[in-house]
């Protein structure tokens, strides 16, 4: 069985020293090993941005696509081969700005994939512009007088879109993050894991220390029940989204693949392409 080391490759990430993304990469590698995957059984599909490079830093099948479209590509991969474990990944700009439409609909569709957002509240690769996750008043190169748009709450959006698995973590908490990614992979449906991943170069407000002071771990609430949708929504609002842990999981709803009429349990990619003459003749008969 593969260990997390086998999910490593020899590529040196081009992330800045201290970037939160390093820990997320490590957590994905550990979680993949912990759930018993072999490298060839995993496909990591990523978007564009600093975080989008992650698919190249894991020894697994990887596709680094176009900005904001990691999710539809990942869903295509999963539909074609449901035997693969598919992880989609990207930044907050990728998933909540340019790709927000796909995010909401991927949540609704509920294919069995895991979406890890590396949320640093800023655009890093383009060197410091505002993101939908930036706080109001946040000064960036594109908002020199401070952002005047309200901050987007991906957790509330996910809940209202009918998400079946919503979690949030912090890149410094490798143990929690790894466990949540494992749970996401095992979840039979779409899992959203938003991860606070500080940008040490362009975000001097939402720093490691800032997160440590401001987030609450759901473990602090022994009565918290992640199967309770109203409780989940309340907790997100009470904490203004600054919470970590498994926030919500619905194990009742079947995944999209399991609800498609006629869709088999095996990979579609392994099926015979040719029609039999009988199948063909039946199709043609309709047009006589």
């Amino acid at each position, binding site marked *: 069985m593969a260990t997390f080391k086998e999910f490593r*490759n*020899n*590529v040196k990430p081009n992330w800045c020293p201290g970037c939160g993304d390093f820990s997320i990469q490590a957590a994905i590698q550990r979680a993949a090993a912990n759930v018993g995957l*072999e*490298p*060839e*059984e995993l*496909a990591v*599909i990523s978007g564009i941005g600093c975080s989008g490079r992650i*698919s*190249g830093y894991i*020894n*697994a*099948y*990887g*596709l*680094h*696509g*176009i900005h904001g*479209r990691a*999710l*539809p*590509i*990942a*869903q*295509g*991969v*999963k*539909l*074609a*081969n449901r*035997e*693969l474990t598919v992880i989609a990944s990207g930044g907050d700009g990728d998933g909540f700005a340019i790709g927000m*439409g*796909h995010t*909401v*609909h991927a949540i609704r*569709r509920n294919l069995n994939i895991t979406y890890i957002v590396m949320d640093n509240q800023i655009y890093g690769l383009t060197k410091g512009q505002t993101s939908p996750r930036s706080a109001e008043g946040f000064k960036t190169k594109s908002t020199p007088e401070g952002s005047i748009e309200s901050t987007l709450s991906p957790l509330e959006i996910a809940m209202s879109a009918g998400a079946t698995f919503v979690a949030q973590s912090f890149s410094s908490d490798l143990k929690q993050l790894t466990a949540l990614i494992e749970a996401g992979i095992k979840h039979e449906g779409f899992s959203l894991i938003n991860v606070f991943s500080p940008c040490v170069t362009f975000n001097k407000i939402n720093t490691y220390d800032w997160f440590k002071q401001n987030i609450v771990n759901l473990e602090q609430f022994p009565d918290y029940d992640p199967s309770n949708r109203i409780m989940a929504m309340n907790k997100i609002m009470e904490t203004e989204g600054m919470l970590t842990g498994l926030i919500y999981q619905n194990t009742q709803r079947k995944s999209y693949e399991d609800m*498609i*009429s*006629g*869709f*088999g349990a095996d*990979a*579609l*990619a*392994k*099926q015979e*392409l*040719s*029609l039999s*003459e009988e*199948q*063909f*003749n039946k*199709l*043609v008969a309709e*047009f*006589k």
Partner: protein
Amino acid sequence: MISQLSWKIGGQQGEGVESTDRIFSTALNRLGYYLYGYRHFSSRIKGGHTNNKIRISTYPIRAISDDLDILVAFDQESIDLNAKELRSGGVIVADAKFNPVVPEGIDARLFAVPITAMAEELGTSLMKNMVASGASWALLGLPLEVFNKAVEEEFGRKGAAVVEKNIEAVKRGAEFVLEQAGGPLNEFKLDEADGRQKLFMIGNEAIGLGSLAAGCRLMSAYPITPASEIMEYLIKKLPALGGTVVQTEDEIAAVTMAIGANYAGVRTMTASAGPGLSLMMEAIGLAGMTETPLVIVDTQRGGPSTGLPTKQEQSDLNAMVYGTHGEIPKIVIAPASIEDCFYDMIEAFNLSEQYQVPVIVMTDLQLSLGKQSCEPFDFQSIQINRGKLIEEAPELEAQQLFKRYELTEDGVSPRVLPGAKHGIHHVTGVEHDETGRPSESAVNRQNMMDKRLNKLNGLQIRDGLRIDAANETPDLLIIGMGSTGGTIDQAREWLAKDGITSNHITIRQIHPFPTEQLIPHLQQAKKVVVIENNATAQLAGQIKMHAGFAEKIRSLLKYDGNPFLPSEVYKACKELD
């Protein structure tokens, strides 16, 4: 006895025009006639004038006719708008309910049939379509049993009582009009058809069927006129084959989902029209850059922007050829018949895997939605070719990656699907080396660009140029694409009678452009006219740019939303300077 006639039904959208046409033409198809249909409709659901025209013939036809023999009208508007097409002595079958009048200056025989009244007598005005089609069928003197069989098939699932009522409606319409006319009209008596079994379908259905035959098992698409019939057809058929259609949130998701699925090994397509194609452009570049197979159908309609969504145009050519930033290899194929729609889809899926490139299949509204007769498809000719797809990669040393983008002589590299034990490699839209890892090396960049862009050198698809060159030095070479071929051939018959010799080339391989094959034909012709449904002569532009002969080339353009009529082509060719 006559060998062909034209029939049209008009009314308000949602009033039964479609179903009347469907049953009427299905019955004619059973008798072995060749049919060619044209739908005139608006971008709304209920209301608004709509009409369907069919040309019925004992020999193959691929064009609408200029004139009309029989007009079935559910309202006066249908008469007012369409009577001018009637040939002298033509017939109008109209609902007596609205007291139809023949417009001044029109020489036509009017049969006012109590269409609505008869239908209501039988229980519902919905059966108007049956009364009307029964009446026009009877005027042609065709056997009623064949018609009733078509009615039975249309309504069979609703139970025997419904079938019986509809057959009764047909009978009443027929009897009424025969009494008024004193029997079937001799001048509309069609010669017997050859009785040979033909298929009768729209281009979009042939595209759907062709895709299934090609092994396509997934489609991701967003609804749009005039492409939606493709997804609607496939969602009915794919579940039985283990596949499915995903209606995505937009065309960007549609095309990127298709890229993901093709990457993972399932032949997947998407289909759209101009607005959707515009949205797909960035992703088409990704497919080109990552050498991922991809098949897109663009059913062209009137552009730009929302343009004329339900009207004919061929104005996306440049977008298909040049769209997406940067430079990628890409194939654009233009089917020119229903048969092409079927066979080209098989070829498109094969080419997309053999060359690992995006393939765009370009149709136009008339080809996609016009219902026509076609020859039965040949099952034996269906071949699936997946190119350099390998099941498993050779075992590599630790930390080595499979060379997915290996530099090869023909530029095409072995491809392995995710899941293969030793095939791990990286795929990225960033410039990359042979293993798929990002690389900014100048040498690598040049090698990879050359690899990708030279893959299609010398590509020749099946019938890339469809050539009808009976004359060695024709007065005229007429060049077209898509649905215009039948119209051009009709015009050529008339030109020949005037002593004007012409050759006809349908360009089916739009990109890469078949320059070498076309040049000799351009050389031979005294004059060349390029016929296309757009305002900026996009096809002529390709010919001039690649093959030259600008001084010889004239354009006949039409961009008012309607297909060319044979008479327009004939007249323009006659008057060519």
